[in-house]
C-alpha cells in the first residue's frame, strides 16, 4: 500500500511578512518551518551581525587613526579584529547567502518548500545560536583574540588562556553544523524537487551556483570541524595535535584551516556570481551570455577550489616544488572567474540597459571584484607574496573581493528581490544615495591599503610607528570606513521605511525571467498552486512573450535583440 501523505496543518492566517504584525506574533516566527520565513530570519541574523561586525571594525579604525594611538589596549584590539573577521565570514556572509538560497531556490524551481523544512529550521537556529555562543565570550572572560584564522601555537592554552578561543571553537562548530545541514537540504531540493520539465540546463544560474556551493560546503566544512575539535581537545584535555613541544604540528592547523578556508571563499562568492547572473540578464533584457560557460566555469572553480590552499602558506617554507605547484594552480583558478566576467560583459553588450540600483551594484562589482582578483593573482607569485603576505596589501585584496564581490552581490540581491520578499518597494532615490555613499566609502577605505601594504604596514597590528605616509593613509582609510558605516545606517533606514510605509510592490516589478516572479509579492504560503510550463532557462519570459519564446529557437543565439 502506498504511504499516506502526511498532512502538515497550514496556518489559517497569512504568513507574517517581515514584522511582528500577525496575530501569532513572535511564536509564529520561532516555530516557523516555511522556507520563506526562515529565509527572512537568516537575513535578519545577517543584518544584526553586519552591525556588530561593523562596530567592531570602526573601533579598530579609530585606534588606527593616528600612530601610537592609545584608544584601545592591544588586548581589546586583538579581540575586536578577531571577532570582526569571524563575524563577517560566519555570521554575516554565510547566513545572508543561505537566507537568499533558502528563500529563493524553491521559488525558482517551482517547489513549495525545501526538501526538509524542519531541518531547515534547525539549520537556522544552529547558525544563530552558534553566533550567540561566540559572542557570549565577551561576557565570559574575553573574546577570541588570535585572529579569525586562529593559528597554532598562539591558539594553544598556554598562549591564550582566556576562554575566548574555546567559545570560538564551540560557536563555530555549532554554526558549522547549521551550515552543513542547510547545504545538504538545498542540494537535495535542487536535485530532486525541480518542477518536471525543468532540466538542469533550465535552472537559473543562481540555483546552479547554490548547488555548487552546497557541494563545497559538504566537502570543506569537515576540515574546519576537525581542526576545531582537535583544538578543543588540545586546550581542554591536553592533547598534542598542534603543540610542537610534544611532537604536534602547528602547520597541521594551517593545512586543515586553509583546506576549509580556501573553498570557503568560493562558497562566499559563487552565490554572488549567481545573483549577478540573474541581474545582468534581466537588466540588459537579454539571456545571460554563455550559460553553459557560466555554469561550467562555476564547476571548474568548485573543483579547483581544493587545489590552491597552500597559497595561504607560502611563507611556511614547504619548499619550492610545493610552492610552485600551488602558485600555478592559484593563477589557474583566476581563469574561470575571468570567463564569467567576460560573459557578463557580453550579456550587457547591445542590451537595453536599465540602471536600477541592483544593476548599479552589478556594474560596480565588475570593477571592484576585478581589482580584487588582480591583486590576488599578483601575490600568487611566490616572491611577491613573501613581501606582501600579512601586510595591508592582503587586507585590501580580501576586502575588494569580499565587499566588491560577496557584499555587493548581497546588496544587489536585496534591491532586486526586496519587492518580492516584502511586498513593498524600496525608496529609489535614497537607494541611489546609499549606493554612491557606500561605493565611495568602500574605495576610500581600501584603495589606500594597497599602498600601505606595499609600504610595509603589517596586518593585525594595534598601532604603528610614525613612518612617512602611514598616518595620512590610515586616516583616509578610517574616514572611508565611517562613510561606509553611515551608508549602512542609511540602508537600515531605507529598509525599515519600506517595511513600514513603502508603496505596495507588484508581483513582477522588473519584467523578469524566472519562476519566483510569477508568484504574488510576497508569495503565499504554498508558493504555487500551479507552475507555468518550463521549457527554457527563461520560463516566465516565454510565458509572457510566447511568440518570442526561447524554446522556439533551440540552439540558436537567443535574444541578442530580444527584449
Amino acid at each position, binding site marked *: *500500500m*502506498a504511504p499516506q501523505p502526511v498532512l502538515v496543518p497550514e496556518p489559517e492566517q497569512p504568513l507574517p511578512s517581515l514584522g511582528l504584525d500577525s496575530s501569532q506574533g513572535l511564536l509564529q516566527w520561532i516555530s516557523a518551518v516555511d522556507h520563506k520565513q526562515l529565509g527572512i530570519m537568516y537575513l535578519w541574523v545577517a543584518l544584526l551581525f553586519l552591525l556588530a561586525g561593523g562596530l567592531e571594525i570602526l573601533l579598530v579604525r579609530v585606534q588606527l587613526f593616528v600612530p601610537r594611538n592609545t584608544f584601545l589596549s592591544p588586548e581589546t584590539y586583538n579581540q575586536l579584529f578577531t571577532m570582526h573577521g569571524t563575524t563577517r565570514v560566519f555570521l554575516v556572509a554565510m547566513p545572508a547567502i543561505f537566507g537568499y538560497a533558502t528563500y529563493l531556490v524553491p521559488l525558482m524551481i517551482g517547489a513549495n518548500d525545501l526538501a526538509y523544512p524542519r531541518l531547515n529550521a534547525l539549520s537556522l537556529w544552529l547558525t544563530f545560536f552558534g553566533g550567540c555562543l561566540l559572542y557570549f565570550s565577551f561576557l565570559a572572560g574575553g573574546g577570541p583574540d588570535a585572529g579569525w584564522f586562529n593559528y597554532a601555537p598562539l591558539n594553544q592554552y598556554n598562549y591564550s588562556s582566556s576562554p575566548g578561543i574555546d567559545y570560538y571553537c564551540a560557536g563555530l562548530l555549532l554554526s558549522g553544523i547549521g551550515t*552543513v545541514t542547510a547545504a545538504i537540504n538545498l542540494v537535495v531540493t535542487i536535485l530532486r524537487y525541480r518542477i518536471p520539465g525543468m532540466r538542469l540546463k533550465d535552472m537559473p544560474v543562481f540555483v546552479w551556483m547554490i548547488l555548487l556551493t552546497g557541494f563545497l560546503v559538504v566537502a570543506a566544512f569537515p576540515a574546519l570541524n576537525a581542526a576545531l575539535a582537535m583544538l578543543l581537545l588540545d586546550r581542554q584535555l*591536553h592533547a598534542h595535535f598542534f603543540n610542537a613541544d*610534544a611532537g604536534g604540528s602547528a602547520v597541521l592547523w594551517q593545512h586543515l584551516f586553509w583546506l576549509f578556508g580556501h573553498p570557503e571563499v568560493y562558497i562566499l562568492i559563487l552565490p554572488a556570481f549567481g545573483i549577478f547572473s540573474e541581474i545582468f540578464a534581466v537588466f540588459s533584457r537579454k539571456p545571460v551570455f554563455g550559460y553553459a560557460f557560466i555554469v561550467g566555469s562555476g564547476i571548474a572553480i568548485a573543483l579547483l577550489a581544493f587545489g590552491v590552499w597552500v597559497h595561504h602558506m607560502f611563507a611556511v617554507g614547504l619548499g619550492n616544488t610545493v610552492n610552485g605547484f600551488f602558485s600555478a594552480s592559484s593563477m589557474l583558478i583566476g581563469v574561470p572567474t575571468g570567463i564569467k566576467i567576460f560573459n557578463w560583459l557580453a550579456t550587457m553588450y547591445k542590451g537595453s540597459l536599465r540602471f536600477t540600483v541592483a544593476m548599479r551594484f552589478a556594474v560596480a562589482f565588475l570593477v571592484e571584484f576585478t581589482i580584487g582578483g588582480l591583486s590576488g593573482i599578483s601575490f600568487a607569485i611566490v616572491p611577491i607574496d613573501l613581501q606582501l603576505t600579512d601586510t595591508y596589501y592582503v587586507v585590501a585584496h580580501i576586502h575588494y573581493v569580499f565587499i566588491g564581490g560577496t557584499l555587493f552581490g548581497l546588496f544587489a540581491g536585496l534591491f532586486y528581490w526586496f519587492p518580492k520578499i516584502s511586498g513593498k518597494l524600496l525608496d529609489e532615490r535614497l537607494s541611489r544615495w546609499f549606493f554612491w555613499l557606500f561605493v565611495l566609502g568602500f574605495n576610500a577605505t581600501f584603495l589606500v591599503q594597497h599602498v600601505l601594504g606595499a609600504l610595509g604596514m603589517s596586518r593585525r597590528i594595534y598601532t604603528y610607528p610614525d613612518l612617512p605616509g602611514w598616518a595620512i593613509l590610515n586616516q583616509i582609510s578610517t574616514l572611508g570606513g565611517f562613510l561606509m558605516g553611515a551608508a549602512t545606517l542609511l540602508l537600515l533606514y531605507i529598509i525599515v521605511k519600506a517595511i513600514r510605509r513603502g508603496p505596495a510592490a507588484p508581483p513582477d516589478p522588473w519584467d523578469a525571467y524566472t519562476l519566483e516572479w510569477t508568484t504574488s509579492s510576497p508569495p503565499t504560503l504554498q508558493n504555487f498552486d500551479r507552475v507555468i510550463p518550463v521549457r527554457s532557462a527563461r520560463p516566465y519570459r516565454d510565458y509572457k512573450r510566447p511568440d518570442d519564446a526561447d524554446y522556439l529557437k533551440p540552439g540558436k543565439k537567443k535574444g541578442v535583440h530580444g527584449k
Partner: protein
Amino acid sequence: MENKLLIQLVVATEAMFFAALLIAFVSFSLVPGFREQQLAALDWRTTGLVTGLLFASSFTYMRAEASYRRGAPGRLRLWLLVTIALGALFLLGQAREFEGLFQRHLDLSSNTFGTSFFTLTGFHGLHVLVGLLVLGILTGLSFAGDYDRPGSTIFSTVGVYWHFVDIVWAVVFLVVYVLPHFTRL
C-alpha cells in the same frame, strides 16, 4: 528517493571529517618512534574480534532490511535487536581496550600517538553510538507496529549510515592496527 541522496550527502561530509582525522594520524605516524608505540599498545587480534562483530552487524542489518521489505515485522524486530547487540558489543570491546590503555598511562595527553589514536577511534565510537541510538528508536517504533508494512524509505536510509560507520572502521582498523605490522620505516 530524496532520503537516499540526503543520507549520501551526510555520509560524504562525515567521510571528509574522518579523512581529516586520518590524515592527522598518518602524518604523526611518519615520525620515528610512533610505530613502536603503536605496536606496543595495540593488539589487532582482540580488536579484530570486535571488528568482526561490527562487520557482522552490517549483515544482520541487511537481514533486517530484507525482512522489512518482505513485510515480516517479527523478523525485522529480531534482526534489529541482534544488530544493536553486535554494535553494543563492539563499543564494549572498544571501552575495554581504552580502559587497558588508560591503565598503562596512555591517553590523549600522553603523546601524538595517544592524541591521534584516541581522537580517531573515539569519534568513530561516537558515530557508532549515534547509530545505535537511531537503531534503538527504529526498534522501538517497529515494536509499536509502525513498520508492520513496507513502504518507508527509513531502513534503506539508516542502512547507508550504518554501513558507512562500518566502512570507516575497516579503514581505521587497517591503517591503525594492521598496517604497522607490515611497514618498516
